[in-house]
């Protein structure tokens, strides 16, 4: 049987890779996909704890995370489409209207 620590370390690695994506990429769509990756790393932690503590609550929380992630992806992509329509770019560095 695989120890619980292994799952926690794996999801920590995947979460950190998602953080790299958010920090270094300059494409709004890839940044949104990196956020999805981070959400999934957290989901893996929830499911691992649910298995090792014998509680179903972790799996139910993953349902809600999925619902929120779907809403977030839909709204995020709609914002990206609307931004692209106005500025013709997907580069967050170019969107500096509110930047001091």
């Amino acid at each position: 049987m695989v120890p619980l620590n292994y799952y926690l370390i794996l999801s920590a690695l995947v979460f950190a890779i998602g953080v790299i994506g958010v920090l270094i990429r300059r494409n709004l769509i890839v940044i949104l996909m990196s956020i999805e990756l981070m959400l999934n790393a957290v989901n893996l932690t929830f499911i691992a704890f649910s298995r090792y503590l014998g509680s179903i609550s972790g799996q139910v929380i993953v349902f809600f995370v999925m619902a929120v992630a779907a809403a977030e992806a839909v709204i995020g992509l709609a914002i990206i489409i609307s931004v692209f329509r106005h500025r013709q770019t997907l580069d967050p560095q170019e969107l500096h209207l509110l930047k001091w």
Partner: protein
Amino acid sequence: MTPSLITFYALAGLLVISSLLVVFQRNVVHSAMALVAALCLIAIFFLTLHAPMVGVLQVLIYAGAIMVLFLFVIMFLNPAALEQRRVTWWSLGTIAALLLAGAFVAVMNGSEPTPDPIASTELFGSPEMLAKSLFTDFVLPFEIASVLLLVAIVGAVVLAKREH
């Protein structure tokens, strides 16, 4: 090395590789394909952790619906230009994230030995058990989630609608 441990290492290696591909591919469509692979691998982890219902939903909702939406937007906007690699920025971001990963691993590895998994019944993770929990203990969050999805639908239509 038990067989389950070997399977874990193989799947974990594939998951880390596909996650790295999501971040470091310069072509957006390739990133999206790597993300589909990563989501399917996470679904396999769910299956091995006695969460078959959540694993199936992961493939249906994430790898199916959400990623189709992503690909649709990618094709709609057609961001053809590959972005430039800026070495200082990339290395700074990577170092910051590696520090974060190091902190996570140190915290999670340093705790007391993990408990053995509680012997699970045949029912654990089944749709019946999930639904029972969802509609008794979590009924209020469930209703709030439905309202949230409705707001997301209306918001997406309003945001993406062409202005006159």
